[in-house]
């Protein structure tokens, strides 16, 4: 398989209002590359949820997007507190977000469920005290 096109972003953990810049940028690039609007929407929403999670829980992190001919792979890696119980975190409505985040309309326990809903595969590797890596694939 030919080497894909890669994009890398540092996600700033201090600035909640700018969260989503990487996802919006990816959306723009995929549109320029002529991808189907539904694929673009799924990739950008899943990535945005991941970005928001890294800002809320992990003081930011790194986002990598690899665009291949048959799929788009999004990898989000942080050095945050880790997820003690991934199965519980995957449940709609389960949230550990603080009140100030909830007042902004996030923290409803929809982040990971949305990421699963919008992607074809979602893999989570997490170690408490070390960090979390989320790898999502959207088939084209």
């Amino acid at each position: 398989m030919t080497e894909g096109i890669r994009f890398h972003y540092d996600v700033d953990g201090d600035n909640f209002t700018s969260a989503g810049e990487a996802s919006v940028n990816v959306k723009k690039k995929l549109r320029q590359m002529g991808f189907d609007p539904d694929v673009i929407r799924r990739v950008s929403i899943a990535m945005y949820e991941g970005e928001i999670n890294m800002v809320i829980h992990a003081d930011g992190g790194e986002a990598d997007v690899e665009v291949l001919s048959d799929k788009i792979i999004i990898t989000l890696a942080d050095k945050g507190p880790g997820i003690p119980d991934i199965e519980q975190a995957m449940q709609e409505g389960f949230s550990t977000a603080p009140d100030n985040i909830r007042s902004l309309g996030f923290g409803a326990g929809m982040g990971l469920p949305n990421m699963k809903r919008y992607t074809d595969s979602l893999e989570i590797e997490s170690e408490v005290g070390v960090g979390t890596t989320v790898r999502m694939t959207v088939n084209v």
Partner: protein
Amino acid sequence: MTVKELTEALSLEVLTMPEPDREITGGYAGDLLSWVMGRARSGDAWVTIMTNMNVVAVASLADTACVVIAEAAEIDAGIVERAESQGINLLRSADPIFAACSRIAAACGL
């Protein structure tokens, strides 16, 4: 119905309307941004009272046709500027969410 036609039909306040000819194909109401992002469909008129900066990103990513701020909620000029630069139609209504939705649904035949 286009976004511009909706603003005229309901006398909505136009905060910014960079894409006036965008077609409205459905509607969604909600303030929990993750919920909206998971459930709103492309082309929806999204009615909310949430007015923080993240509303612009959610509208962009969910690809809604427009955002209608209900209850004439206050919104910072910086957020309106961000919406304009990202091609997000941002409208405002004095109606509460329920009334705004029913009027939009009637006008658009939803």
